[in-house]
């Protein structure tokens, strides 16, 4: 049974590089953290979310673990990105959005209470976007932006953070000689790692990744995934992905969403090899989605 399911994952139509997939898919189970060994960091309970009058999330409840990678998967329009953007209140920037019911607590603090400073929240909960979006500034300026807006001007401190962040994002060796060139001069994969470096420069606790590899080629994707493994030693990572291979490769736990509802949430290994729900099984085995 087990081997059959693993093989079916590798054949999922999402993957742009079927030839690279089988070897990786086999890798999956070994790299996943054992379940139940981590503390809960984020508690989402009974969340109903609306875009204007249209409800996008229905009664979602799930607990996310500290210093683990959690993947949100599901077909397009299932609400996984919406939920992700609720976690640092990026949805506040869109007119007419509202949470009608339910709470999101990080370390027990409800982040939607009126007395919450959204700016502070976003410093703690960093984000990496689907399309790499470095500012039209130098590499150095890109990374120090988050610190400068907090008023940190000390050159030595900034230099130190730039090196640490770039090393953290496995980009230091590639760009150390051209820190003052435009961030837009980098290749797509490098730009995305620059965005990751920029996010970790402000030392958040949580990093949200919204399909970080969807615009990257397989080699660049492999590098970012490698990076995610490194990053989870320090950060709690939540990643939205369309690629089930990716979810299988990088995450410890996986949540499957379907039309705004959490369908199944469990250890990644369980979700891919022994899903309880028929819908989940159909999706992870590539029968729909």
């Amino acid at each position: 049974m087990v081997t059959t399911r693993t093989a079916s994952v590798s054949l999922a139509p999402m993957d742009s590089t079927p030839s690279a997939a089988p070897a990786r898919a086999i890798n999956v189970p070994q790299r996943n953290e054992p379940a139940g060994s981590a503390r809960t960091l984020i508690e989402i309970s009974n969340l109903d979310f609306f875009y204007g009058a249209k409800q996008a999330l229905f009664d979602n409840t799930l607990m996310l673990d500290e210093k683990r990678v959690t993947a949100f998967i599901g077909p397009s329009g299932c609400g996984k990105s919406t939920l992700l953007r609720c976690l640092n209140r990026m949805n506040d920037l869109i007119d007419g959005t509202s949470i009608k019911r339910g709470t999101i607590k990080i370390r027990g603090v409800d982040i939607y209470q009126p007395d919450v400073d959204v700016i502070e929240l976003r410093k703690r909960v960093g984000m990496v976007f689907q399309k790499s979006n470095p500012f039209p500034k130098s590499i150095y300026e890109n990374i120090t932006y988050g610190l400068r807006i907090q008023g940190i001007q000390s050159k030595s401190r900034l230099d130190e953070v730039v090196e640490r962040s770039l090393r953290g994002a496995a980009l230091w060796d590639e760009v150390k000689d051209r820190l003052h060139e435009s961030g837009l001069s980098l290749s797509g994969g490098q730009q995305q790692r620059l965005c990751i470096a920029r996010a970790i420069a402000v030392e958040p606790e949580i990093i949200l990744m919204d399909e970080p590899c969807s615009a990257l080629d397989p080699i660049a994707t492999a590098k970012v995934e490698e990076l995610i493994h490194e990053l989870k030693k320090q950060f709690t990572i939540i990643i939205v992905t369309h690629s089930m291979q990716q979810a299988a490769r990088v995450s410890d736990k996986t949540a499957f969403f379907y039309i705004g509802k959490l369908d199944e949430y469990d250890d990644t290994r369980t979700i891919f090899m022994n899903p309880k729900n028929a819908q989940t099984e159909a999706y992870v085995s590539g029968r729909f989605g």
Partner: protein
Amino acid sequence: MEPVLNAEEPKPFAIKKTRTRFLGLTLDETIQTFFGGNAFVAVIVLALITLFLVKEGAQFFTQNRASMTVYRQAGLEYVDLMRQQEEDHIALTRYLFDVRMQAIRQYTDAEGLPLADANARLVAFDEWSGQYSDAIEPVRGLVSELTDVASAIKTKFTIAEDKAIERAQLLDEGKTEEAAAVVIETVDFKTELAVLTGTLPMFKEASVDFAGQLTALLPTAPAFSDAVLQARMDRFVALTRQYLDGFPEVVRRMETWDFEEPIPLARSFTGFIFGRQWLTASFWQDWYGVIPLFVGSLMVSAVALTLAIPLGVGAAIYVNQIATAREQRLIKPCIEFIAAIPSVVLGFFGIAVLGEALRALSQFENLHWIPGFPIAERLNALTAGCLLALIAVPTIFTLAEDALNNVPRAFREASFALGATRLQTIVKITIPASLSGIVSAVLLGFGRVIGETMVVLLCAGNRIAIPDFTAGVTVFFQPVHTMTGIIAQEMGEVVRGSIHYRALFMVGLVLFVIALLINFIAQKIVRRYRISIG
């Protein structure tokens, strides 16, 4: 059996054109030609305008040279050399009068003396300044006498030229007898000028006498106890010394002056571009210098942009980045509607409301600490500039808002996700990313302002003179004339083909070149901006 036959003889591969043609063109081609023709009309019209402006304007230089040649040959230039001495003296006398005004203010305001007492304290000063201003008399007499002589020579020459034209016209019409009857009196400049140049010894004598009087007066210059007044008086003495030192140079130039020396064409050009006087229909000599008009246009535009940049860019930032959807729906059409107000209505508003209001405001005692208040002229560079700002705001607003809109949403999101406030995001990300677009918006606003005619014609005061920049900020309360205004005002009255007519064309050409440059630079900047966003 039939299907088999069909298989052996395949259908013909019919791909030949079969469309009907009209004048050798298919329907598609006709439509293409129509659209292409419309597009090229713009190119052709621009080329025609340029050609027309250049053709009409270029002849100005030969005409201007002819005019300058007469100015020299008829001896007007010679007399002006002398007159310069007189005019400089007048300027110095005015300075002296200004010092007196300041002294009176000092005595009445600061020391609280009644006006009569203040005047009494200046009796010695008045006597001295009277002597100072009378010293010029011998030179002045000579200059005014020679002015008549020189203009008589010029008139004579002008009449002779007119007669020659008349004869040529008659000959053209075949009226030989009438043509022969036209008497043309040839002007021999050399003999005519002998009267003028013969007066040089007299001028030298008068000049030396005058210089002697001033030099004698200087040591007895009245002194003031007040430090500021004394400083101005010292400055006056220094200026007079400088003036006196220039005397030998005047004489030297008069001695070496030669009426036959030709005037280079370049002089005619520089005389226009750098000319500090625009003087038409003068009994003496017409000057066509664009500088007073250019400075007027620049000053009015400077006022307009100083007001319009913060208003336009500020409004664009607010509407694009901060405003709610409802505010956007209110503000945007309002600003864009301003562009729809006819400029003549704005000009009317400027005269009737803004000019009056500014002057009424400047009458308040409490506001007299503002430099330039109370305003002497109701219509001035500031009034016109304020209204022009209204005209520039919609242009700047619309284009700047476009530029802000073009900043990818991803930049803003990334900034917010890093914990930036809305203001930090605007200042550090959105504005820098759209800066080149904003700059080109401002440039195009400038182009809009410098080309605007009606408002400046109605509200700028239309005094053709370079404003007195020594007056500091209050220079903006002085009336000015502009390049656009002068064309609108004078084009209707000039004789077609005359030098004045051509001069107006040249002004138009200057405007055209400025507009072209502004648009070119703005486009360059925008293009660079597009590339940088990728």
